[in-house]
């Protein structure tokens, strides 16, 4: 597990500034897309489609970095590398880590929305 923070507060406050009224929409969009991505990663892993797994991990990484979830982004990056190198066991472990980190991020972001 990496040492990056769950959320990058500075990045999030910048996003709030940029997005203005759309900030809530952005966060909800991110959360629902991310849920779908984890499902896709899960099904790619079970069908042992390492290419689909790699692509999905890559895209997921991009949106995590943009939204200000660096720890989740780093996990996606490790999963992307594992997928590319076809280390299926590592990929499976990383997907578990991604799933649990995502739960944390979701909780934190939902709190942000209540603020």
């Amino acid at each position: 597990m990496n040492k990056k923070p769950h959320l990058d507060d500075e990045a999030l406050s910048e996003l709030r500034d940029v997005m203005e009224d759309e900030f809530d929409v952005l966060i909800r969009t991110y959360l629902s897309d991310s849920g779908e991505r984890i499902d896709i990663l899960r099904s790619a892993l079970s069908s042992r489609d390492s290419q689909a797994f790699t692509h999905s991990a890559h895209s997921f990484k991009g949106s995590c970095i943009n939204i200000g979830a660096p720890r989740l982004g780093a996990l996606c990056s490790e999963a992307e590398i594992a997928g590319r190198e076809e280390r299926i066991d590592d990929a499976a472990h990383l997907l578990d880590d991604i799933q649990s980190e995502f739960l944390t991020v979701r909780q934190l972001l939902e709190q942000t929305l209540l603020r």
Partner: protein
Amino acid sequence: MDERANSVDAASEADEADGDPLRIIIADDSHSDRLILQAMVRRLGHQVILAEDGYEAVELFREHHPQIVLLDVMMPRMDGMDAARHIKALAGDTLVPVIFLTSLSDADALARCLEAGGDDFLSKPYNRTIIEAKINAFNRMRLMHRTLSVQRDLIRAHNEQLLTEQDIARRVFENIAHTGCLDAPNINYHVSPMSVFNGDILFACPRPSGGMNVLIGDFTGHGLPAAIGAMPVAEIFYGMTSKGFHSGDVLREINQKLARILPSDMFCCAAFMEFDFHSGSVNVWNGGLPAGFLLRKNGRRDSLPSTHLPLGVLSPERFSAEVQQYRVNVGDTVLFATDGVLEAENHDADMFGDARLHAALDSASGQRPPLRALLDSVSDFTGDQQSGDDLTLVSVDIVPAADLEELPLRVAASALSGPAHWVCEYEVTGETLANFNPLPLLLHICMEVPALRRSSGEVYTVLSELYTNALEHGVLELPSDWKDSAEGFGRYYAERERRLKSTGGHRIRFRLEHETTGKEGRLKVICQDTGAGFNYTDQKRSALDHDGYTGRGLALVRHLCTSVRHLGAGNEVEAEYHWSLNRQPEVKGSPDNESR
């Protein structure tokens, strides 16, 4: 795909400026990333078009012609690299910056993006300041590229227009200039197809009385300005020569015209050659061209140097059309070249020069005529096929007059039916006899009759011989037997010049009568002079008709006309010329062959 889809757009936005809002496509399959980038780009004042994959990006590009495209690399259906290739192809000549949105860190993958036509990267997480800086930088590049494209197109269009104009000018020029007889069997010449734009001219035209005039020249300057001067020269040369004007009149007219229309630093170095194959003489006027050559059959070589200033320099009052007259024989050749020959340079920048020119002429033979020998030598010297572009050369062989009978006289056709019955009297008196040639005017009057126009050469010959006879033998009382010898020939013309100064009190009167039935007609020419006349009943004198060149004149008239009668004291001749639409014009000069 229509690769020009966007160029129309570029033209319609030609007045677009730096700072105007842009249409920008954002293509990313990640919904949240799209939302973030859209918000950032909108805050910069631009219009955003969203696409969810590469395929949609290409379709939207085709529809909206955006100025900048932001593409995620990995997308379903069509990835960013393929989309970039399609968009660059659609954009054609227009620069549409494609910026890849990426969290790639692998150098190979980044390089592949650039190979696909990408112009730059924008890495995640997005940074507002960097996005603004990149969009502005690429917009400036785009505008600069478009300015350059517009200027390039403008230059290309100007260049095409210039070439079109040159082509039109060349064709107009050829229509004016190429009605001549440069294709006559005794003429060899070399000109480049674009010679008119080097300022070079070369014209040859048969004269109605037989023989031909040749003009070779070289205008100062290059390009269209040099070509413009050639137009009036061609008009005057062909117009006046085919109407029967002599070299002096043609030269004076050309000089006056050029002096009037050309700027003072522009003129035309030229040589005018007036060939008379009947009498075996050539009159040469050289103003500023390198010396030409009279190449004798026996190998001797006479120089024909410049003795005048170029055409278009002197005012009409100071211009001299005086010619050098040379006796020539069958087998002799007259050769002239513009200064392109002497000044042709080899790779060491040495000039061809006089010595090589003479050596080349020495090497000429029956199989290799002088002009060919000279051209070959220049081309060997320069070692360069291009050099021929600046060379204009002409050589005219002296041949028996009968060899050139077929030369067509292209007098402009008229649609008018012309006068049928008419009488014209014209009298030239006193000093006017010395400085005015009435023949073009008289010929012009006769040429109003379409049927006579068909045989202008014959009509001119009749008028000209009667006039020459009246002037030289009648008024000036020159004995024709002087012309039998070379020295007598010179004496004859010297004496002619001298006696022309005292023509006071004399006159030559022409009376022309024309009648026609429509298909046939008769032109009666009566020429009367104030000379003493002669006893035309004397057998010895009327034998004039058969004594070689000197008697040629009246013998020719007798041959061409149905009747020739001396009247009064022998100073009046009446000739009747018949024409018929069913008869081809007679061949000129055939009595000559009988009498020689």
